[in-house]
């Protein structure tokens, strides 16, 4: 038996590595004008149709039989290139492709790879698409475009939270150039932290996760930033209603070193200053100011040491800040006292990555990365009264800090042994440091001779964790019709002298049943060692990132998916996927707990349970021609079961959404005008709403005088049992471009919520009041209970000006 196993291994090994009479072509595929590497470009030999796609760094390697071959290089939106080669020995061929002047009706073979590829449950959005679709306040947003894809549910209105295939908001791994970003939202979730100007491409994986990814249950959002134009200086400035942004890129040493820097900042706080000043005019004794802003800054530098060696350094820094300040004085017994009250809430991420790409040979590509990621959140309140005569003061100071810090070292390899195999393998180690909430309090008064100020720090202790992972995956073209991606992801998490280990098998298989029809299936096990303790319907910075501990176990999921992919005519791609996912060790706040009491003992305030989700996703896409876009439809169920929530009964997850439709279309009339339209429809969110009331039966004391007071208990009939009204909205945006002397200017006009639908944000029981004069001329008021709906955004026009040079 052992002998047979050895023989089997040997034969597989020899099948992979014996490549007699074969030649390898390798190199990079990049944009001719900018030098920007092209990810997922198609490279194939036209006769046998065997080929490959370029990796995240634009590198490719394909091994073919020796002899005369025609190789075609193509990429969506670019002119394809054919090369007649007489393959005698291994060759390095760096290819540049040219962007089409105007997207025409040419069918690009890139679409075909989507049908053939073993990868399923993945959607790629090029950065250029992000700026064409209309969004809230005219601010292009990566996550809001992702929300338009089937299988992805948006959170509350206007927010950029995403819920993938019944998963929670913490189960999405946001990778910005490979670095995890923990809180991906600005302005309480209404904007994401990813500045679209700097984004090259976005890939969303909802299932069928390749083994190289790990650490989250529900999705991977792999965002790659532009590298910077290595030919000439280019830039972009955009002024919008909410924020302005800029981007500048260019060579430092032509064809060798390039950079890109981009940033944006909101200016609500600055614009509001005149109004605040006017408001303060009437106050002789003080000033009040308040404001809110966020900014982010992306920078990336890359240097080519040689054709084999490249170094990248990228960094992101972003912060939100809301503040109020009040200065006033009063006079008491001929002494002036100055009062200063300050309140601030801030949060932000800093990430950095240093990456070194090295090509060991035509078949081996390596990537070594060191990253740093830091997310922190703080709330500060300070009240200070100073006696201006003596200088003595009284103080009341409170600060709350929480956050998470990661250091990562990672190495991975792409190995192209030929024979239809593409092997990726690697390992990484993350050193996590969690700060789950620390309070700093100072108070005391020296005004009246008291000298005992309190200065204490208390809260949850910092927790250190170490996460090691290793993976190997093979993308194997078993035959021209059958492709398999299989692999293993191993992870180990060490925390508080406890080790958690997980071996996660992954597999995706595709079968090309006809030239334009394939069937796919996938299985993935995922494990997650950090939790987001979230209490609210919107993404609040108070949401706490917490590690697994001795008591709180890792989350696990198993997901299977089946799908069919086809082309309808020459222009349309159609896919349907069904999925079933189970999740264990999910956490939720205990009933009645909320973040307001989380300053200590968080482990005792949570419940663990399980969840599952299943459904079907339909996607009709058109990626070529003047009109492009997609229509997506999702039918899904997402449920949860916690022993101590909802009395142990199954309940719908908060974003269980039966039907979800999204239409996202762009049309280019000509070089000067393009239009984007989106329409979304979703079943209303599940919410817990009281239906009945009954008297409480609380213990009485004494004479029972108070019995019956404030005793009505509301009956809910189950957690998340009520459906809010359905959500739908139409957005339209038009871009007017004009070639100017020094560049292209674009006016973007947009309307969010064109027909001003009042979508539900929050429901509550209130009263309708009727009043007037009765027949006797007496004024009366009468009220009756009514269900009330709060909505956020009506029709909102937006305008922005962009200049590209």
């Amino acid at each position, binding site marked *: 038996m052992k002998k047979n196993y050895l023989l089997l291994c040997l034969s597989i090994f020899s099948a992979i590595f014996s490549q007699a009479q074969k030649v390898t072509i390798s190199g990079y595929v990049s944009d001719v004008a900018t030098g920007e590497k092209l990810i997922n470009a198609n490279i194939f030999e036209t006769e046998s149709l065997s080929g490959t796609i370029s990796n995240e760094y634009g590198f490719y390697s394909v091994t073919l039989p020796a002899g005369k071959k025609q190789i075609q290089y193509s990429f969506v939106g670019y002119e394809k290139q054919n090369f007649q080669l007489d393959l005698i020995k291994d060759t390095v061929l760096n290819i540049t492709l040219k962007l089409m002047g105007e997207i025409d009706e040419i069918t690009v073979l890139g679409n075909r790879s989507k049908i053939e590829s073993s990868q399923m449950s993945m959607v790629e959005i090029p950065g250029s698409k992000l700026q064409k679709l209309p969004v809230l306040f005219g601010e292009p947003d990566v996550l809001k475009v992702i929300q338009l894809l089937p299988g992805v549910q948006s959170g509350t209105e206007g927010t950029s939270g995403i819920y993938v295939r019944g998963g929670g908001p913490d189960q999405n791994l946001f990778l910005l150039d490979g670095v995890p970003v923990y809180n991906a939202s600005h302005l309480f979730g209404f904007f994401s932290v990813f500045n679209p100007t700097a984004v090259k491409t976005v890939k969303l994986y909802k299932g069928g996760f390749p083994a190289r990814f790990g650490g989250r249950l529900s999705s991977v959002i792999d965002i790659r930033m532009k590298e910077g134009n290595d030919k000439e200086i280019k830039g972009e400035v955009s002024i919008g209603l909410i924020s302005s942004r800029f981007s500048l890129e260019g060579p430092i040493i032509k064809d060798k070193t390039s950079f890109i820097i981009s940033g944006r900042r909101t200016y609500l706080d600055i614009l509001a200053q005149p109004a605040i000043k006017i408001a303060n005019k009437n106050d002789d004794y003080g000033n009040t100011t308040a404001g809110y802003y966020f900014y982010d800054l992306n920078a990336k530098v890359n240097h080519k040491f040689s054709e084999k060696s490249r170094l990248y350094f990228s960094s992101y820094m972003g912060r939100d800040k809301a503040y109020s300040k009040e200065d006033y004085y009063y006079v008491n017994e001929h002494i002036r006292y100055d009062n200063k009250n300050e309140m601030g809430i801030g949060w932000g991420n800093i990430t950095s990555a240093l990456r070194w790409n090295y090509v060991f040979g035509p078949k081996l590509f390596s990537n070594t990365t060191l990253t740093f990621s830091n997310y922190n959140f703080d709330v500060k309140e300070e009240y200070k009264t100073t006696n201006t005569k003596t200088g003595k003061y009284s103080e009341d100071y409170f600060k709350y800090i929480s956050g998470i810090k990661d250091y990562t070292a990672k190495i991975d390899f792409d190995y192209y042994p030929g024979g239809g195999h593409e092997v990726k393998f690697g390992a990484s180690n993350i050193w996590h440091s969690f700060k789950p909430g620390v309070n700093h309090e100072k108070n005391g008064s020296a005004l009246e001779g008291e000298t005992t100020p309190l200065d204490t720090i208390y809260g949850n202790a910092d927790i250190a964790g170490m996460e090691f992972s290793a993976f190997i995956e093979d993308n194997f073209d078993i035959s021209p019709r059958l492709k398999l991606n299989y692999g293993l992801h191993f992870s180990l998490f060490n925390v508080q002298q406890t080790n958690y280990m997980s071996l996660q098998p992954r597999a995706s298989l595709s079968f090309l049943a006809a030239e334009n029809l394939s069937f796919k299936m996938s299985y993935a096990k995922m494990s997650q060692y950090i939790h987001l303790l979230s209490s609210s319907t919107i993404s609040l910075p108070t949401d706490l990132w917490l590690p697994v501990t001795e008591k709180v176990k890792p989350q696990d999921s198993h997901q299977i998916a089946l799908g069919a992919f086809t082309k309808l005519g020459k222009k349309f791609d159609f896919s349907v996927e069904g999925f079933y996912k189970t999740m264990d060790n999910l956490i939720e706040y205990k009933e009645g707990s909320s973040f307001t009491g989380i300053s200590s003992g968080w482990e005792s305030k949570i419940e663990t349970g399980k969840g599952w989700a299943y459904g079907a996703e339909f996607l009709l896409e058109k990626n070529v021609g003047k009109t492009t876009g997609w229509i997506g439809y999702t039918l899904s169920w997402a449920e949860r079961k916690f022993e101590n929530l909802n009395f142990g009964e199954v309940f719908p997850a908060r974003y269980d959404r039966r039907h979800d439709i999204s239409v996202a279309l762009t049309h280019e009339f000509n070089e000067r005008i393009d239009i984007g339209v989106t329409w979304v429809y979703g079943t209303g969110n599940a919410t817990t709403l009281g239906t009945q009331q009954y008297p409480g039966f609380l*213990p009485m*004391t004494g004479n029972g005088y108070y019995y019956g007071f404030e005793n009505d208990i509301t009956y809910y009939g189950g957690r998340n049992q009520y459906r809010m009204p359905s959500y739908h909205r139409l957005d339209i945006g038009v871009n007017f471009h004009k070639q100017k002397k020094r560049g292209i200017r674009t006016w973007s006009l947009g309307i969010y919520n064109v027909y001003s639908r009042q979508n539900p944000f929050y429901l509550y029981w209130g009263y309708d009041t009727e009043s007037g004069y009765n027949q006797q001329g007496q004024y009366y008021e009468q009220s009756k209970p009514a269900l009330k709906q709060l909505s956020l955004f009506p029709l909102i026009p937006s305008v922005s000006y962009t200049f590209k040079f």
Partner: protein
Amino acid sequence: MKTKIHILFLLTALFYSCEKTIEFNGANMDPKIVVQGNLLSGDPIRALVYKSRSLLSDEEFYNSLPNAIVKLYENNEYVETLEYAGRVDTFRKQLPYDVVKEYIFTNGNYSAKTVAEVGKTYRLEISCDGFDPVTCETTIPAPVEITKVDTITEVSDIGNGPVKNSWIYIYFKDPEGTKNYYMLQSEKTTGHILNYYEQYSGESFVPSDTILLRHESFTGIQLADPVFNNNNQADDVIMGSPDNRFAIFNDSQINGKDYKLGVIHYDPYYGGGGYSPYPGEDKNPIDETEYGNFSSLTIKLVSITKEYYEYLNSANYHFYFTDDPFSEPVPVASNVIGGMGIWAATSSSEIKIVNGTYPMPGKTYIKEYEYYNPY
């Protein structure tokens, strides 16, 4: 001008929110049977039977169900059918156009002849036309005796005048082998001389022999003991008033042990001027207990059923988080299958600490609210 337009745009856009009434289209709006009852050993069994009311209803009162059939089972054997003994009253509400609407309401009281006994299980099976039938069951827990009481009193001053704090230690033994649930309650009654408030400045004061009894809404028992930690009541205060009239705990930390449970009694009246039943530092003669002023603090250690514990625990959270938009609403636990409410059972033991003398020979005691509201 442009800036002004921008501000207008931004403020409108960012802070616009609108509210409207929408139609409720969910299920669970049909009223259900509500059962309430607390069985006490030695007392006849009683239950209150109501119907719940829709949140869309504008009724002022909960209507009882006088036509319900309430069957009582003791240790799984049918005993009797409870009789309706509700008290009827009418409430009149003035509506527009001088319309007066009358609401007839009753307290839904059903009573049995059977007397509850410790250790026995009592089940109700209730049916009523137009409603889903309900059942509920409870077993009367044995009381846990308070074996000893200690008090340590200290007077402190943190800047607002002297304050008297008393540590009160209650000794009891938690029964072994069973999971036990408790409730701590306190009651405070004070007595003061009738004519205290009727004296005039400068007049000589002759204490009357009539003492008014006041049920204090503030008993001020601070829950300093760690047994209260497991349901977030640590450092809370039993007020005795509706806000907080009880504290619950279980034996997860003290199972089978002899336990000394400590609470702090905080007396806000002490030394604070005005009326005080205690001897004050200023030695105002009317504050002296020799004239009949007193305070009486009763602390009850109540054994409760698990279901009642869960009901009270969830009800506490339910009321506390009702208006917190950052918290999921907290449903209240119930042991009424098919309906709502609680069918509870309790047994208690108590201690009383009297400061002063009560009753004092020669004094007449009148409840304060009866004295001022004789009708």
